[in-house]
């Protein structure tokens, strides 16, 4: 099964006092992943046009666009517009290893290549050891579970624990604060789940991407579709490899999810990272449309 989407993302910044010498690193272009998804067409643009632009690929293989503006700006828009073909992941057998066997499987990976599980354990820039989340994670799983079962159990438990609330947290909220408040958005729930997985020895990373805006007829609308979405991937042993979970909706990531970036936490895949010389405050707005394309209609 597969699905084509037309995707449009706009990130609009406006500044109280015009900002000079601005530099922005964007990660908003969907990835090409063999067997999973294909970027059919699409471009990242900036309005006003930048004085400098460099398209590149980061360590984890995510496309990046770095832009610089020399003039003073009071507003700037970044936009991705394009078409992506997404394949549904095979819902096969549970090939993951048992939780007890996982450390040995990890230790056998002599690699620090981007896909190696070693990057995804322990602390990362925005995530650290959290005893409270560790205790919660241990309650949700048992030693006899497979890694996949453990990850699913955690995804479900967190989905139950959390109330989706876009007003409760900010982009800088720490996982422990969100966990204690039991409220937040996809970024919060995902970062709590990553912390929890790492606490029980499962390598876990952050996935940023898009979620289909309107569900197929007769199905409920998924949470997180009006902005960029975030979910989790966990390394479930050599045979199963990386498996993606969407704890915000308590489902596996699949046909409705379009991947933009893989990282250790939000800081690796933030859609826009900026620096500017400005005295005043600023305001950011994100607008997302992910519209399935009827394959019979002309493109």
């Amino acid at each position, binding site marked *: 099964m597969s699905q084509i989407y037309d995707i449009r993302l706009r990130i609009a910044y406006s500044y109280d006092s015009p900002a000079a*010498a601005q*530099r922005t*690193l964007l990660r908003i272009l969907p990835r090409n992943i063999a067997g999973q998804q294909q970027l059919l067409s699409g471009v990242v643009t900036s309005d006003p046009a930048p*004085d*400098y632009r*460099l398209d590149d690929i*980061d*360590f*984890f293989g995510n496309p990046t666009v*770095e832009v*610089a503006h*020399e003039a003073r700006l009071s507003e700037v828009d970044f936009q991705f517009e394009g078409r992506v073909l997404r394949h549904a992941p095979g819902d096969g057998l549970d090939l993951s290893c048992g939780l007890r066997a996982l450390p040995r499987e*990890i230790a056998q*990976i*002599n*690699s*620090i*290549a981007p896909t*190696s599980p*070693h*990057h995804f*354990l*322990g*602390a990362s*820039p925005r995530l650290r050891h959290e005893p409270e989340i560790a205790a919660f994670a241990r309650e949700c799983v048992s030693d006899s579970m497979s890694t996949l079962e453990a990850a699913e159990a955690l995804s479900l438990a967190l989905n139950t624990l959390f109330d989706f609330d876009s007003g409760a947290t900010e982009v800088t909220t720490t996982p422990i604060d969100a966990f204690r408040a039991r409220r937040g958005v996809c970024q919060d729930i995902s970062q709590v789940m990553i912390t929890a997985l790492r606490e029980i020895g499962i390598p876990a990373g952050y996935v940023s991407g898009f979620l289909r805006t309107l569900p197929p007829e007769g199905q409920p609308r998924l949470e997180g579709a009006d902005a960029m979405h975030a979910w989790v991937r966990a390394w479930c042993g050599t045979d199963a490899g990386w498996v993606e979970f969407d704890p915000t909706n308590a489902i596996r990531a699949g046909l409705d999810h379009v991947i933009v970036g893989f990282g250790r936490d939000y*800081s690796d895949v*933030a859609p826009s*990272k900026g*620096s500017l010389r400005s005295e005043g405050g600023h305001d950011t707005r994100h607008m997302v449309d992910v519209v399935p394309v009827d394959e019979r209609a002309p493109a």
Partner: protein
Amino acid sequence: MNKAGTPDALSRFLSGYDPLPGVADELKRPDGTMRPVWEPLMRYVAGKSPEQLARAFARGDQYLHDTGVYFRQYSGAESTVRSWPLSHLPVVISENEWDGLAAGIAQRAELLERVMADLYGKAELVRDGFLPADLIAQNPEWLRPVVGIKPRSKHFLHFLAFEIGRSPDGSWFVLGDRAQAPSGSGFALENRMASSRVFHDHFPKSGVARLAGFFRSFRDAMLGLRGPADGRVAILTPGQHTDTYYEHAYIARYLGFLLLECEDLKVQDGKLSVRTINGPKPVSVLWRRLDSRFADPLELDETSALGTPGMVAALRAGAMDMVNCLGSGVLEARALMAFLPGICEHLMGEPLKLSNIATWWCGQESERAYVLENLERMMIGSALSTKLPFDIDRTTALGGKFRDSAQGPVTEWIQREGARLVGQEAVTLSTTPAMIDGMLRPRPMVVRVFATRTENGWEVMPGGYARIGRGGDPTALAMQAGGSVADVWVMSKTAKPADTLARAPAGPFLRRQPGLLPARAADNLFWLGRYVERAEGAMRVLRAWHLRLEEHGTRTVPLVSALGDFLSTFGHDPEEPIPTHLLGQLDAAVICASKVRDRFSTDGWNALNDLAGSAGRLAERVHHGDDAAHAMSVLLRKTAGFSGLVHENMFRFLGWRFLTLGRALERADHMAAVLAALADAETPAGGLDAAVEVGDSVMTHRRRYTIESSRETVIDMLALDRDNPRSILFQIDRLREEEEQLAAVSSRPRVGEATRRILMMQTMLAVSEPEQISTRRLVRIRRELAAISEALTAQYLS
């Protein structure tokens, strides 16, 4: 040596010096005899009376005090500036021994280069099992954005330091590798300056290897990295709040490199440049004294307030070289030392020439078991820590125990967190003589040695930076904070000629780059000029006020009250004999100066600190009236001393112009304000005389105008007289002169906003008659001066 049975001064001097048993000592062999390499120095020292020795040591301390050597010490959130704790006796090492050590250092430097190239390249050391993957992947100093970068110079490492110690069997070993942004070479140089003064009549003929050759090699290597383009070499410092800022400023001056902060730098079109008063200029080599993580908030630590956005991209694009390349901090992790012996055999085909402290990573089963069995002689700490083994913190266990008993049992800890821990052999260091209360005493020491990459391979500085423990305890523990530092003398058989950095290098002539003035430095100099002048103006008015207060005995006299109001308008509370606001202005001047120490003469710096310090001390004890007026005279003399020193000794031509601009603007503004307040029709009687007094023109005024002072004579003298250095027009002439020079070297349009405004003001004053300079006109002049300041700022300082 002395004959037995005839104890001379030397053997008396050495008789009380008893190294601990089982510990290597630098001065004495295990059999109690002195190592020959120490003899000349010891004979010299023993031949001095205690008074002579005290004077000699004081010479070194005076030098350090005069040059303003200090370092900043942090404990918690507090930081204090500490004077330099020099242990006056150097550590003496023979050239033969040093050569062996240097060969080991050079090998280790090359080894680290290859490890770094692998970790940021193919990662074969991990693939082939020479390094555990998680040790690298979990290290926050292994910077993923740097992976794949190929340095323009083909090398990642150019300047390294190593902390070494001597074990009981007499061999040297490495306690820690310093690859991130090694400090201490400038301090080593300062220690050398001090020790050569302490032993001024011994040092020149002593055969001590000179340090200048090493710095020349390093400087030439840096200049050689520039490539074909005419880019600059600069030192990148985190700024004046870092503990080693003094060293950064010192070595920048010594080597003649720009000292920059991230804020000075800008990446444009993939290239790195420095913001100068004449716009951006290319920088092609950076000696990075800032930890990698903080260098670029866009790709590295996003919370860094210090970084330059785009720095990693510029490095990736090969637009510059960095000494050392970003990411070199990964080489400092303690745990790496467990694997370096094996990696050396693998990569270099030979064993380590200089062993490192025995280290076991507890993430491996057999190593963990070994550590658990030998807990008694282990120090156990974080695997990724970059601290030296003797920097013990709460979570370090020594001899099977934590320092903080609140922690659980050590064995459990190791079982649970093995992969995060290393065991390191609890080492015993050698001792070296130090003079403690007039007696020679053995004290433990470690030495930091430095190596730089040159065209002909690694060159090791013949000398180093020794740290000496406070107590006699020879375990590494004694090396914690609170010790002293010493010079290291490498002795050759022949006397060494004096050497300086200035010697012409062999090979093609290297053109010296014309000076650049970063906008931030210019801004600080501009404001330094303004603050000092502003304070001076306040002092003059305060003196006039206090004198009249004394004379009239009451503040209600109209003139006293008018002067008091004037002071209040400028933020000075007349209730305080020396207002806090004045102290604040002097402090602000010191802060500006501290940000440009590399461009500022030491004498000027000391004079400014003396001025601010004196003001603070006087403020605590003087009273209103004559007492305070006298204090103002003292401070004015000190201000004049500072200004004289600075204007005579300013290091950089361009920088001096900004200081002068700031001073001229402030002085003109002050005079306009004084005249507006004291030469107004409404001003009480005596105002004109007070203005002449504040304007330091009493004598001239009396000489020139035999008649009584009138508003016209005073205005003529203090506003329009081109020959009076206190007059407004005189200062506008200065502004015009300095700005013209700046505009001449700038690439901007010929008549800029600042030029235009200064010219207009100059013309207006030049053609005015005294009666035309009304109070309203004076107020307009002040507004116009503010506009000139803004125009200068926009044109040169941002």
